[in-house]
C-alpha cells in the first residue's frame, strides 16, 4: 500500500537511514504518556468514528476512517514496542516502522487529519485520537518530515516573531493607519490604538493576516475597546502575533520558543492579562499548550477577547442596537476554541445581543464539524483538494441555516470559509465576532442619558 507523499517529502523519505527511523520512533514513544500508550491497543473496531470525521463524510473511503489512521500509527507501535509484536508481528497486526510506513503516517496524520478531535468525543471507548496523531506528527517532525509550507510558517515566527515575516516598521505603520481610520469612523480624534503602553491591563494579540491583508477585523476590535474605554495595548516588538504553527508541526521546542514571544512581551510591558484575539489554534496554544511547552505556568492569566466582549455587553459597558445587523447570522465553532478550548458561550451571547437574528448550525458547539482548514491544513498546499472536499460538510451546514452571514471567531477558519464560499458558491458574507459587534455599537447610556437601547 503506497501512498505518495508531497514531492519534497518523498525524496527525504527515500533518504531516511535506519538511525533516522529509530530516532523518529523514539520521538513518537516519548510524546505519549502511559495512558496515551494504552489508546494504541484500545480500538474495538466498531467504526463509530467514521461518520464523525469530515474527511470520511465527504469522501467515504477506508483511509479516511479515523480508526484506520489510528491503526497505521498503532501498527508500528505494536511491532516495535510490544513483546508480542516483536515475536509474532503477523498475529497482532504489527508492521515494521519502515519507509513505507512513514509514507502511510504522513498521509494519515498530515494529509487526512485536521486534529479536530471530533472522532475522539464520538469514540466508543474514549480514545484521544488527536493525541496519538500529534505524537505521530512529532515523530515525523523529528525526522525532518514536516511539509515545507507548514514549516515555513513556523520558521517565519522563529525568525521574525510573526508567521508572515512582517517587519516592525510595516506593523507599526499599519497600526497607525488603522488608528486614523478608527478616528474617522468614530468621529473621536482621541480614539487610540495604543502601542507599547506599559502597565496596560490587557495585552491584545492578533493574527498577522489582519495587518497584512485583512485589517478591518483589527479595526473592529479596536472600536470595541474604544467603546468600552478599555485600558489595552499592542506590542510593537514580537509578542503581538497570537499564532503558533508549532502546534501543528508538533515540534514542541519550536512551539515553546514561539510562545516565549508572548510571555516576554507580557513581562516587558508589565500587563495584567494576555488577551488572545479571535483565533482557535492561537487560543489553544497560548492558553492550554504553552505552559506545557515552557514547563511552567505563566505568572498572568490568559483570556479570549470573546470573553471580554461578552462582559462589556453583560455589564452594560457598551451598548448595542441589533437592528444595525439586520441580516441573520450563523456561527462556526473553531475546533481549537470550542471543542478543545472550552470557549463556547461568550461568542453566542455576543451575537444574540448584537445581531437581529442568530441561527445555530446543526450540529454545533462541541459537536461542530471542522471547516476543513484546521490542524495546519490551510498551510499545506499538497492536500488542498482534500481540504476543499472535506470542507463540503461545513458548506452544507452553512447552506442549511439559510443565514447570509457566517461568523467565525478564527482567522484560519475564515480563510477556509472564504474558499468554501467560492468553491461551493455559498454567496455568504464571512465576518469576525468583533466586526458584527462593532457595527452594532451605539453611544453608551451614560453619555446619552440612558436613551439608547440596551440589550
Amino acid at each position: 500500500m503506497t501512498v505518495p507523499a508531497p514531492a519534497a517529502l518523498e525524496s527525504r523519505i527515500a533518504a531516511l537511514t535506519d538511525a533516522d527511523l529509530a530516532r523518529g520512533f523514539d520521538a513518537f514513544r516519548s510524546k505519549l504518556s502511559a495512558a496515551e500508550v494504552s489508546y494504541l491497543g484500545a480500538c474495538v473496531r466498531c467504526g463509530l468514528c467514521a461518520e464523525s470525521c469530515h474527511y470520511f463524510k465527504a469522501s467515504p473511503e477506508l483511509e479516511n476512517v479515523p480508526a484506520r489512521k489510528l491503526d497505521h500509527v498503532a501498527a508500528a507501535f505494536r511491532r516495535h514496542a510490544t513483546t508480542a509484536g516483536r515475536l509474532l508481528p503477523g498475529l497482532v497486526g504489527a508492521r515494521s516502522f519502515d519507509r513505507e510506513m512513514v509514507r502511510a503516517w504522513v498521509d494519515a496524520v498530515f494529509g487526512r487529519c485536521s486534529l479536530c478531535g471530533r472522532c475522539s468525543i464520538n469514540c466508543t471507548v474514549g480514545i484521544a485520537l488527536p493525541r496519538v496523531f500529534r505524537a505521530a506528527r512529532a515523530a515525523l517532525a523529528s525526522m525532518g518530515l514536516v511539509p515545507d509550507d507548514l514549516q515555513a510558517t513556523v520558521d517565519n515566527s522563529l525568525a521574525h516573531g510573526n508567521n508572515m515575516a512582517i517587519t516592525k516598521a510595516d506593523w507599526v505603520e499599519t497600526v497607525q493607519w488603522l488608528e486614523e481610520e478608527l478616528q474617522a469612523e468614530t468621529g473621536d480624534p482621541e480614539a487610540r490604538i495604543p502601542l507599547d503602553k506599559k502597565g496596560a491591563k490587557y495585552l491584545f494579540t492578533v493574527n498577522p493576516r489582519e495587518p497584512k491583508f485583512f485589517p478591518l477585523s483589527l479595526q473592529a476590535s479596536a472600536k470595541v475597546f474604544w467603546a468600552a474605554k478599555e485600558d489595552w495595548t499592542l506590542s510593537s516588538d514580537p509578542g503581538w502575533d497570537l499564532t503558533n504553527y508549532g502546534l501543528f508541526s508538533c515540534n514542541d521546542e519550536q512551539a515553546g520558543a514561539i510562545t516565549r514571544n508572548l510571555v516576554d512581551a507580557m513581562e516587558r510591558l508589565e500587563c495584567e492579562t494576555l488577551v488572545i484575539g479571535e483565533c482557535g489554534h492561537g487560543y489553544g496554544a497560548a492558553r492550554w499548550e504553552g505552559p506545557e511547552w515552557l514547563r511552567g505556568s505563566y505568572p498572568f492569566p490568559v483570556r479570549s477577547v470573546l470573553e471580554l466582549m461578552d462582559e462589556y455587553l453583560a455589564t452594560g459597558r457598551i451598548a448595542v442596537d441589533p437592528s444595525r445587523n439586520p441580516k441573520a447570522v450563523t456561527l462556526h465553532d473553531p475546533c481549537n476554541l470550542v471543542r478543545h478550548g472550552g470557549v463556547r458561550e461568550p461568542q453566542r451571547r455576543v451575537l444574540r445581543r448584537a445581531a437581529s437574528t442568530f441561527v445555530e448550525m446543526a450540529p454545533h458547539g462541541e459537536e461542530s464539524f471542522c471547516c476543513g482548514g484546521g490542524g495546519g491544513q490551510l498551510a499545506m498546499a499538497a492536500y488542498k483538494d482534500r481540504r476543499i472536499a472535506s470542507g463540503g460538510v461545513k458548506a452544507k451546514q452553512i447552506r442549511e441555516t439559510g443565514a447570509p452571514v457566517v461568523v467565525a471567531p478564527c482567522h484560519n477558519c475564515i480563510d477556509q470559509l472564504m474558499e468554501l464560499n467560492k468553491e461551493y458558491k455559498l454567496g455568504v458574507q464571512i465576518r469576525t465576532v468583533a466586526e458584527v459587534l462593532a457595527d452594532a455599537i451605539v453611544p453608551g447610556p451614560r453619555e446619552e442619558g440612558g436613551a439608547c437601547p440596551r440589550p
Partner: protein
Amino acid sequence: MASIDFNGTTVELNPEGFLANPAIWTEELAAVLARQEEGIENLGEQHWAVIRFIRQHWLEHDSAPMVRSICKTVGVPLKTVYELFPSGPAKGACKLAGLPKPDGCV
C-alpha cells in the same frame, strides 16, 4: 500538479492555483490566470495598478506588500481592493501577480 493552457504551452500551477514557477510571470499570463482561476473576465486599470505594484514589490523585497501599502501607493481604498479581488489580496491579487502563496493563515 494543476496546469493551465497558455498560448499553446502548458503552465504549471501549484495545487492552490499559484504559479509553480513565479519567474515565468507575464501580464498576458496574469490575464489568463484571472479568467481561469479567479473568474475575472477583464482586468481593469485598477486591477493592473494593484497587480503591477505587488509584482514590483515582490521583485524588490521577495515578499508580498502590506495591504496598507497597496492602498497608499496605488491610491485605492481598502474596500476597493476587496471588490477588485474577491478572493482577497493574497489568494486573489498576489496570485495574479505571480507570487508564491504567502505563508500564514491565508
